[in-house]
């Protein structure tokens, strides 16, 4: 008996494999998601907040209406079918998340505003974040801008220094002899441990923070650039040398492009280190930025502000990592099968 492609298709159809393919008309997951968002809206609006000794949570109604609005939009999209093809293609992969998010928010809302099970100053309901963003957006915005400026300053300087030092010690045996022990001894010291010293010596606390972030970034970048340059396939050099390449050509056109994948791993690790030094520096001495905002909010027991700032920080860090990966994908487009962020 022979199995033709037709047979296989028929059998697959009978067992329902093509359900999703055929019914483009109605997006069921979307409808389910819409109903959960509606549930969140109703809980927020209809279930009265528990009195906790001070005036009611602001923005409760707005939060509820927002959830209902999302539910309406999702319903429309789910029923629109081919009319909203572009939007559906974007939303489709996120289907499960669109259900999980309102469920999580509902739980959060019930545990805080509705039942008051979690102790109040430390845990605030979701609508309190809206309150923070509408009332304190200028301060959060400026803090974010300060953090970003400091981070970019430190990371760029550290990245360039690390790349240059790594290339030099990977290429030159003499440089390796002198720099390697220093790197081994001082490199692993956490940059934040040098914080008091840096604030003492540097002309300003900003300069000290730039120095520390650069230091934290440069260590992984140096080590990985160095190992990248040192591990370049020796026959690449043989090929280039027989073709008449100079020493500079070997460094710039052979060693560095070959080491680039490793350099990007170093930059990725350096960026992570830079984030943590950034926050510590801002908490300890720099009187601006998201780290400072966190510290300040904690001083006033304004925990909602803290959560709000933490969310902004998460978005900032995640976006920067995404940006780095985009740059890497562009630079290393010749590689096959790189990890997608």
């Amino acid at each position, binding site marked *: 008996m022979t199995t033709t492609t037709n047979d296989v298709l028929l059998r697959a159809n009978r067992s329902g494999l093509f359900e999703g393919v055929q019914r483009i008309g109605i997006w069921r997951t979307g409808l389910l998601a819409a109903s959960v968002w509606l549930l969140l809206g109703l809980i927020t609006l209809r279930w009265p907040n528990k009195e906790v000794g001070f005036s009611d949570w602001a923005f409760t109604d707005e939060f509820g209406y927002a959830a209902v609005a999302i539910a309406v939009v999702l319903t429309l999209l789910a029923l629109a079918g081919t009319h909203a093809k572009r939007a559906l293609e974007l939303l489709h992969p996120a289907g499960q998340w669109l259900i999980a998010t309102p469920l999580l928010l509902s739980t959060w809302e019930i545990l805080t505003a509705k039942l008051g099970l979690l102790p109040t100053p430390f845990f605030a309901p979701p609508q309190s974040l809206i309150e923070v963003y509408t009332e304190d957006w200028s301060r959060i915005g400026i803090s974010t801008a300060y953090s970003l400026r400091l981070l970019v300053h430190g990371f760029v300087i550290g990245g360039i220094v690390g790349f240059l030092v790594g290339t030099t010690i990977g290429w030159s045996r003499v440089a390796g002899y002198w720099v390697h022990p220093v790197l081994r001894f001082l490199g692993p010291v956490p940059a934040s441990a040098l914080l008091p010293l840096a604030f003492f010596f540097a002309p300003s606390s900003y300069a000290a923070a730039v120095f520390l972030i650069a230091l934290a970034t440069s260590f992984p970048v140096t080590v990985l650039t160095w190992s990248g340059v040192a591990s370049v*396939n020796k*026959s*690449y050099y*043989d*090929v*280039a*040398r*027989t*073709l*008449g*390449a*100079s020493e500079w*050509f070997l460094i710039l*056109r*052979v060693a560095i*492009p*070959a080491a*680039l994948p490793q350099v990007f791993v170093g930059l990725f690790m350096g960026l992570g280190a830079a984030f943590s030094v950034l926050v510590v520096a801002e908490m300890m001495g720099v009187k601006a930025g998201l780290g400072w905002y966190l510290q300040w909010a904690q001083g006033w027991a304004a925990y909602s502000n803290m959560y709000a700032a933490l969310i902004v920080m998460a978005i900032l860090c995640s976006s920067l990592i995404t940006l780095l990966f985009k740059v890497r994908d562009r630079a*290393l487009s*010749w*590689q*096959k099968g790189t990890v997608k962020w």
Partner: protein
Amino acid sequence: MVIATREQNPAGQQTSGADIGIEHVSHWFKLPNGVLQVLDDISLTVAPGEFVALLGPSGCGKSTLLRLVAGLETATTGQVLQNRRPITHPDPSRIVVFQDPTLFPWRKVWDNVALGLQARGLLKQQRQRVDDALALVGLSEFADAFPHQLSGGMAQRVALARALVNDPQLLILDEPLGKLDSLTRLQMQSELVSLWQRNGFSALLVTHDVEEALFLANRVIIFSDRPARIRAEIKVDLPYPRHRGDARLAELRHEALRHLGLDASW
């Protein structure tokens, strides 16, 4: 001896084959526990435009001899001459094609071929030569491909183009077809012969494939086990293009195998 006719090559320049002289070369490797002799008093010449194959058991030191001729290493004793001048460092007049294509994976095919011209600062004025070299090996459509998209045979052709674009006086071939499948290999042997005939360079080929050596070369030099000594020399007195079924080739093959101590299976 058959000397390839000189004609205009596609780059529009007259090339002449190099005259290579290897005089009493012996070579030792430094190892952690002493020294190891790999070459023992080798003397041979390659006349301008001649194709010489070095045949021997694997690991006997043939490839080391090629590295000395390329100028990548210096002989412990004896000297290697190009047009009667000692070879001391690598030079684009002598290009090596290695067993692995060793294309740079971050460069497209076109940029890989352009490597030599770029390294010597000639690329801006002579971009046409890169296109010509790619056309010569029949890979013009793949100029924008990355090396990982090529098959083994195509990659080795790109490596050939990368060598030929420089108009070498001497092409040093270190088992360049060793890793290809047998069909691609036969095809590329014929291509090598026609490239050599068109361009007029001298060629020095290392191989451990007896048929390949006899099919390609004017002269086949047979090496002993390490340390390599010259054991015999076979003149292949057949015109090009040669035919694999030629009775004379079979005879010479028998002779070569006898020198290698492998004629029991004949």
